[in-house]
């Protein structure tokens, strides 16, 4: 890690504890799906059911994780929530109201960072503002003070290829935060990262989220990540995707990184693993505990 990046992250962490108000606070909304069903034609005429009667919710300001095997329809669910696809049946509600047009309602962060190669960092993170008609100067003025806190200080005018993988993800997350939507949909945001970067970003994500205050739904394959970040975890079954279990994560907030090595954490993780094994039929083949951890014990 470069000294500059380390400094930026440290500043970010310090701010998280001091609770400075510079982070744009976005009060969360209640996000709910009811009896969602979605199938695709599989090409040879047969229907492939991706989601079968899925009902779940995230309370306002809650951090909810969705975990399940590949192909259980998690991404389909997110596409429906984000407005990219329509369900065959069921409805999506935000603050208990059915949304007519979902596109633009939630802030969506895809698996790939989605940075546009022809936009500099500052223009990439403000792309949502510019789509909404905010002037370039004004959008920049809003994003600029946040760059430092997102570990992007000094890279305002860098092109995407000049950023490290971790920086690209933080830029993508800043872009998501700057949308200022009451709910964020994070589709495996750390899936492609190496363990060290992932652990660093998870911790940093928590700090930012605690300040922003919006509702978060997170898709993950990583049991430890779900336990560390979420208030509640939905376990989805293999195709067709259904809600197989709902686990409340009984850990206090804020959650410092030391928590990862605690007995409390381990027992929560064991509960979730057990739920995955019994409900989702996943004894093995699941990603091992998140790689680097704080030293065990205290």
């Amino acid at each position: 890690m470069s000294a500059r990046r380390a400094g930026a992250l440290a500043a970010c962490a310090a701010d998280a504890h001091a609770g400075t108000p510079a982070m744009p606070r976005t009060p969360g909304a209640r996000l709910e799906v009811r009896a969602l069903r979605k199938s695709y034609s599989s090409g040879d005429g047969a229907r492939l059911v991706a989601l079968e009667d899925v009902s779940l919710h995230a309370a306002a300001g809650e951090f909810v994780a969705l975990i399940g095997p590949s192909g259980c329809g998690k991404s389909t669910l997110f596409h429906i929530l984000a407005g990219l696809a329509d369900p065959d049946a069921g409805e999506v509600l935000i603050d208990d109201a059915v949304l007519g047009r979902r596109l633009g309602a939630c802030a969506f962060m895809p698996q790939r960072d989605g940075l546009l190669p022809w936009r500099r960092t500052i223009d990439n993170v403000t792309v949502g503002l510019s789509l909404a008609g905010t002037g370039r100067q004004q959008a920049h003025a809003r994003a600029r003070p946040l760059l430092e806190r997102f570990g992007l200080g000094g890279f305002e005018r860098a092109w995407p290829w000049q950023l490290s993988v971790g920086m690209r993800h933080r830029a993508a997350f800043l872009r998501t935060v700057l949308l200022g939507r009451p709910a964020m949909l994070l589709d495996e945001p750390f899936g492609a990262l190496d363990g060290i970067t992932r652990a660093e970003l998870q911790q940093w994500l928590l700090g930012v989220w605690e300040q922003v205050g919006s509702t978060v739904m997170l898709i993950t394959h990583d049991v430890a990540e779900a336990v560390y970040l979420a208030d509640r975890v939905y376990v989805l079954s293999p195709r067709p995707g259904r809600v197989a279990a709902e686990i409340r994560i009984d850990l206090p907030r804020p959650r410092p990184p030391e928590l990862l090595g605690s007995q409390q954490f381990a027992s929560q993780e064991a509960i979730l693993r057990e739920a995955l094994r019994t409900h989702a039929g996943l004894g093995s083949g699941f990603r091992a505990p998140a790689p680097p951890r704080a030293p065990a014990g205290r």
Partner: protein
Amino acid sequence: MPVRPVRGALGARLRHIWPPALVLIAVAVAWEVITTALSVSSTVLPGPALVLEATWKDRANLWPAMWATSKEAVLGVLVAAALAAVLALAIDWSRTIRRSVYPLMVTSQTLPIIVLAPLVVIWFGFGTAPKIGLVALFTFFPIAVGMVQGLASADPDAMALLRTMGATRRQLLLRVRIPSAVAQTFTGLKVAVTYAYVSAIFAEYVGAEQGLGVYMQASKNAFRTELVFGAILVTTLLTLALFAIVALLERLAMPWRRPGQSEVDW
């Protein structure tokens, strides 16, 4: 500040230029030696020394010809690029237009444009305009195909992401599709400009008052073969210059590109 990697740009360029330059010099030397040793008549095959000397002496006649042909070539490419842009955007925007126009556009490329040249002279006379039109006809296709393919090459994930932010179709076009098309547009333009001078000269062959085509024909009729070769040399150099200008514009148009990324170093 963006990190601009320092590289030995000039050094790298020279390294690329040396091998073909040496081959060229070797060929020229061999050519000179053969024509001298076998005392070939200069009307049949003039040696390179004679070509250079005679061409330089005749520069007063060559300049206006170069200028006239350059005007036709450059304006022709510009007209082609403008038309290609309009058509490519229409094809990209509407599925109906794509279905109805794109196949015709590809088919039109099979037309022997050469046979159109005399007709164009009949219709539009001996002036500059029909030459520009013919150059545009010749160069339109690669530019249009590059643009259409470039627009279609836009990353669907990026499009989906911007749609979730509430982007309209027009915003997607301006912010994703058009920037995605720049690289392939320039590829098309580079192919097109290599035809530009050749097609302008061809158009002049059919009937013109001024230009390199006229100059070549007049030189041939006067049995000044060395001047025909001189005009060929000048055409090559002008085409290379036009290519270099397009390559430079490409670089300026895409400052976001990683140095060395899919760039044919010339």
